[in-house]
């Protein structure tokens, strides 16, 4: 079985890879490109640990085929920070202690960034429903919501409550 040649953009950089037709984008990221920040928690689109942004849309990379990356632009957790400068969502997750084991964190960082890209002023309920596809078993989501709402306020330039 011959592999497919895929040309894509990942975290702003041009990337080429070979993959089999049935390989998921998550497997390509983790096993071929060594971008292991995206996690596999279920491989069925239920846990969100593999969340990436593909052409501006939040998706589960375990439900995307590697070949579908052709010509698209993908952001993974490794591309959320601007070099050494953490994204406000990342900084607020740290300040609010919004992680315990940290396994769901990459997916939640990506999903939260996608939320604020699309809706800079979400209500807490909107944020909860947006993040409902990202399972966290450690935190009870309380501090995650606090971090996301605080990051949103900071990105809007509002003083912190």
């Amino acid at each position, binding site marked *: 079985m011959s592999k497919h040649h895929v040309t894509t953009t990942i975290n702003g950089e041009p990337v080429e890879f070979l993959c*089999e037709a049935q390989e998921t984008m998550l497997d390509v990221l*983790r096993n071929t490109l060594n*971008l*292991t*920040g*995206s*996690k*596999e*928690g*279920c*491989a*069925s689109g*239920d*846990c969100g*640990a593999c969340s990436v942004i593909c052409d501006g849309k939040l998706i589960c990379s375990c439900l995307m085929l590697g070949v579908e990356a052709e010509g698209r632009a993908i952001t*993974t*957790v*490794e591309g*959320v*920070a601007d070099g050494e400068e*953490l994204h406000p969502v*990342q900084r607020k*997750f*740290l*300040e*609010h*202690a919004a*992680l*315990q*084991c*940290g*396994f*769901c*964190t*990459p997916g939640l*960082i990506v999903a939260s960034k996608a939320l604020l890209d699309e809706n800079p002023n979400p209500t807490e*309920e909107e*944020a*909860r*429903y947006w*993040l*409902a*596809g*990202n*399972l*966290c*078993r*450690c*935190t*009870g*989501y*309380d*501090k*995650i*919501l606090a971090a996301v709402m605080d990051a949103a306020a900071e990105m809007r330039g509002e003083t912190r409550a």
Partner: protein
Amino acid sequence: MNYIASKPELKVVGTRPVRPDGVDKVTGRAQFGADMALPGMLWAKVKRSPHAHARIVSIDTSKALQLPGVRAVATAEDFPDIPSEEAFVGEGPMNFRDLSRNCMARGKALYEGHAVAAVAAISQAIADAALDLIEVEYEVLPHVIDVEAAMRPDAPLLHDDLFTQGLAEKPAKPSNVAKRVAFKKGDVEAGFREAEVVVEGRYTTQPVHQAYIEPHACVVSVAADGQAQIYSSSQGQFMVRAYCAKLLGWDLSNIRAVPLEIGGGFGGKTLVYLEPVALVLAKKSGRPVKMVMTREEVFRATGPTSGGVIEVKIGAKRDGTIVAAQQVLKYQAGAFPGSPIGPGCMCGFAMYDLPNVDVVGYDVVSNRPKVAAYRAPGAPLSSWAVECAMDDLALKLGMDPIALREKNGVRDGSKTHYGPSFRDIGFLETLAAAKNHPHYRALLGPNQGRGVACGFWFNIGGESSGAVHINEDGTASVVSGNPDIGGSRASMAMMAAEVLGIPVEKVRPIVGDTSSIGFSHLTGGSRVTFATGMAVTQAAERVVEQLKARAAQIWEIPAEAVEWRDGAAYPAGSNAGAFEPLTLAQIAEKAARTGGPISSEVSLNAQGAGPGFGAHICDVEVDPETGRTTILRYTAVQDVGKAIHPSYVEGQIQGGVAQGVGWALNEEYIYDAQGRLENPGFLDYRVPVASDLPRIEAVMVEVPNPRHPFGARGVGEVPIVPPMAAVGNAIRAATGIRMYDLPMSPPRMRVALDSAKAS
């Protein structure tokens, strides 16, 4: 040294710094089990039984071995058939023989998903293809899933050599009842004769999974001389090493277990599933081997915790004084003995000072995956029954439910029904904080109700090691032997920084591998901040003694004449003011000339873990049409001793509550008639998501544990104990219906609402 009394103004402990491993975790750099890779590594997969109970007649691996790219196959024949031997390595007793047979079935498959063979190949695809080529001939046997069905004399027998322990005489015939345990205090029958009000009920729970988001994973390599490396995600690198050595008959010194970041455990990663299998395959193939479970494998073959049947009966005087309490508990152990029936029997009534108690428990095997520890193992089931009954009792007496608990609650000197007496506990303080919380008096709307429930956990200490090394520039490194499952590296660094008197950012902690730090019991029992924290604190104190001695040497005065404060040595007593203070950095710089490196490692067996108590208040709304229960507001009060890093203490409480709410409302293992699990995925096994929950307010009560230098007591387990009853009691308040069976899912609520309406 005890800092509670002598140093009331702490500079680091009790603050909320950014955790030292945080940046790696928000940027994707942190390396978890499945993120590890070694050059030339093979991928291994497990073939699992499709039957709930079957004799393995034969296993033919020849076709699989012929598939190009397959390098090794393993079955039970590759493992020594070790004798029955019980040891306390994980969070509870473990029989090595059972563990071996759980990792790889020998003779019989005891549950659907039980490992029967494994294969290592050069790619995942080839390993998968090879699994299909392994031919297993089964003789399917009758199976049993339900706990009470398994206890019947005519039930299908899982182990023909299992004779009930704990009876006056060894029974004549084997059964599925592995053990009977009993605790008695006073005279329960006399107590019930004295009682003026009696409540009772029969409660059931289903097995629920720890549902850590990270599936089990490991990478191993075995050299030709027998030296092996294990990189894996677990709750204890020393536990992994001990189990692997025991199951394979290898020397401990030949195994180095390296802890990778752990993506949640909650007790479920206190034993091994993959590592021994991977080691066998690595040894046979001469190549490193990587194994990663799928989510379906996690559900079918690991964890969960027990389901059970719990009967409870409580008798009280009209003034609320409880005079008799009785419980019968039947816990599912899964395929091998070892449910948390012991703690289950102890925890339910542990919160109350009762004169007459009678508790009997049964540990029962059935054709389900072997249970693993799950947060306060055994307590949630027991307390689900007791705390619902307490609510019924309060209702019957016309008493406030918190007042009823205050009247009977344990205090210093109270003797438990299982033996020990409590001291330095904060249950009454916790109840008072709950009663005084504005939540307790907030108004409720139609179809809404409020419930209260309490929870207890022992917390443990145990063998622990911690090291503090002073670096040449005056910064410090802390090494501990415990995987950091919820922020413990932050606590370790904070306690060391407090003692050393330097900023916490100057102290960097790591979790060492089994060859770089002294033995440490696993991360479990809510013990790490208490016990390993004690080791790290003592190591830091020894380092301070060395720093003082070095300063004394530089000044040429006696070491006793030096005092340490704010990260510097000061001449004291008659020498006070005679020399400029020497900072830690200045002493570190001169270390080579004053005696060499400054460091200390402390290994100890920590005693005196303070038990923890929680009181939860929960508001729900029950939709009368759909039966769906929505959590409107949740407040969890807990005595935490002293919060080292309050944010991570709150996080433990909030996370425990969320898991308990899932246990209360959604989560359960569902089996078909053939004993096959029907919901082995996150779509059908529904853990709470962000939109299911409100903000969870964690209220920390601080009654210091005098046996920890900073007063800490374990906090991680208590918060999962009360939620099931808190939700159930809130549902009772909202609907007038007492629910006896978990989960209180919409279909079950609908049936209850319909039948209440009909009657």
